[in-house]
């Protein structure tokens, strides 16, 4: 973390990848411009950063890259508001500001030696991509048990990270289940909503943790399925989204009950959330 937590450091856009057929989601591959910034930016999957477009503002994004890829950070951005709109107009060579890493990230120490079941939907998959690539990295793979990834989108063309998905399919040490709400010609994955697919895949809760990340409705319907399969509240982790500004638990905006999503989260176990107020919606 930087000395002054409000001041971003510059990063250059190296590549802009259009992820989805509707072109609403782009991934920005950024490179550090100063070695000192890279050295300070030590992160774990599940953490996020505030990305600045100078003159427009900043918005929080989970790192879609993993710390096993040195020199780069990637952020997937859905064009939805003012900052994300401005980001979508930027190109290779442009400079953005970044401050972070922020938030707690996934509890990797706790996950070690366990089977992992990652359940993601749509755009919410970005930090699960980070976690998957982290676990699959040759230096880390032996630290974790079986890896199951369940990932869905409304249409096949709205799934992100096509290259990674292809690579994981052939890699063999990850059980990948892709699903689309609606079938299309040539689609070989599941058809149906993520919770249903989770039920049919029926991951074993023994010695396992589940991580759920996606739109609120998907989370809402996936949680009971996981419980039905035998996952306890302390075995289920969620990554929450709220409107954020400061990212360091001061501006008072993103709390769920007594906890700030930015600084106490964004990753919470279902057991932690159950202890908070009814405000968590899950």
């Amino acid at each position, binding site marked *: 973390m930087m000395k*002054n937590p409000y001041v971003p*450091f510059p990063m250059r856009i190296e590549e802009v990848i259009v992820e989805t057929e509707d072109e609403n989601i782009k991934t920005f591959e950024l490179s550090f411009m100063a070695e000192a910034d890279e050295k300070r930016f030590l992160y774990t999957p599940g953490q996020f950063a505030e990305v600045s477009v*100078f003159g427009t*503002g900043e918005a929080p994004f989970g790192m879609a890259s993993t710390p096993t890829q040195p020199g780069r950070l990637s952020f997937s951005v859905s064009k939805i508001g003012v900052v994300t709109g401005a980001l979508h107009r930027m190109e290779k*060579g442009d*400079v953005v500001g970044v401050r972070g890493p922020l938030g707690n990230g996934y509890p990797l120490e706790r996950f070690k030696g366990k089977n992992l079941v990652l359940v993601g939907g749509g755009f919410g998959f970005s930090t699960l991509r980070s976690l998957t690539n982290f676990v699959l990295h040759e230096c880390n793979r032996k630290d974790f048990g079986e890896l199951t990834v369940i990932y869905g989108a409304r249409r096949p063309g709205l799934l992100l990270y096509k290259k990674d998905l292809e690579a994981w399919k052939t890699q063999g040490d990850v059980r990948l289940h892709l699903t689309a709400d609606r079938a299309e010609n040539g689609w070989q994955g599941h058809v149906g909503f993520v919770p249903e697919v989770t039920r049919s895949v029926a991951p074993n809760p023994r010695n396992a943790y589940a991580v759920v990340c996606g739109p609120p409705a998907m989370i809402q319907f996936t949680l009971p399925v996981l419980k039905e399969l035998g996952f306890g509240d302390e075995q289920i982790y969620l990554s929450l989204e709220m*409107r954020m*500004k400061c990212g360091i638990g*001061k501006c008072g905006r993103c709390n769920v*009950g007594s906890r700030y999503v930015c600084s106490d989260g964004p990753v919470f176990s279902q057991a932690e959330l159950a202890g908070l107020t009814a405000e968590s919606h899950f």
Partner: protein
Amino acid sequence: MIALSKILKKQRLPGLLERLIKERQVFAPVKRGEIILIREIDSPSQVLLEYKNAKESPKAVLFPQRETLFRYRTERGKADVEVPSGAARGRVLFGIRPCDARGLLLLDKVFGGGCSDPYYMDRRNGTLVVSLGCAEPNPSCFCLSMGGGPCSAEGSDVLLLDLGDGYLAEAAGEKGAALLEDQAFEESDERSLDLAEKTKKQAEASMKPVAMKENLEGELERRFSDPVWKDLAESCLSCGICTYLCPTCHCFDLCEEGSGQAGERIRIWDTCQFPLFTQQASGFNPRPTGKERFRQRIMHKFSYLPETQGLLGCVGCGRCVTECPVNLDIREVLTSLSEGNAR
């Protein structure tokens, strides 16, 4: 900590203030039109110590309503960021009320805890707090029910108590003791100490306690989904005046002022009472109506902050009571939330 007591005769106050003004920025109660505000002074004659309380809390001295966090300048492939230099001189908050001094303790926890806020802490570390005890609290005051008191020294480096021809000055800690080294102060005597004690007791006795449950924090948790919130929030306009005037409210927004080429990132006060505060770009708002926003304000002050910071987010200054345009009285809210059983 041993409290140190001395006497400050009223005729020696201007001299003290003159010496302070030479060394520091001094902020004190002054009259602006018909109202009292805490403002920087450049002459002792501007200070008005015979007052009830300032219209605004003094939090802006440490946490300005608008401040520049950094300036930026960009050209293609480049971005330079520059942070403005910090406070050059130390500050004194002189003659603020004990409730407001106590409010600083909560701000200290929020801005100083976890990832420390360099802008607030830079100003705070060089600030001396000299508060003035209240002999006659306002009818809207309820500091005593919030764990403080009209003559509480919590959050003050020096607490002054008006004894008629002079002030009894009580110092807590090194900063306060250092101020009492000034030539304006003289040794205290038994009579003054007795008089001060009597003043304190009288002031406390004049206050009406707020009828509320002892374990309000736990009670509020149980009442999160209670239908009572809807009734309580019914008349609230979501205007946010309660939060702007509050000595402990600290929510803020970060905004850009300028163009893509040059400008600054600013921090500006915000309020949990505004609908856009939590509105997400997708259109989803976790606090869509006044009920949720009103509940957030109360829960934050009386449940979340006690849990996370060990302090209430209310010092009982009563500004939200006197300035609310629809006469919503937070004391009555606390009483309502203490009545009957959670539903």
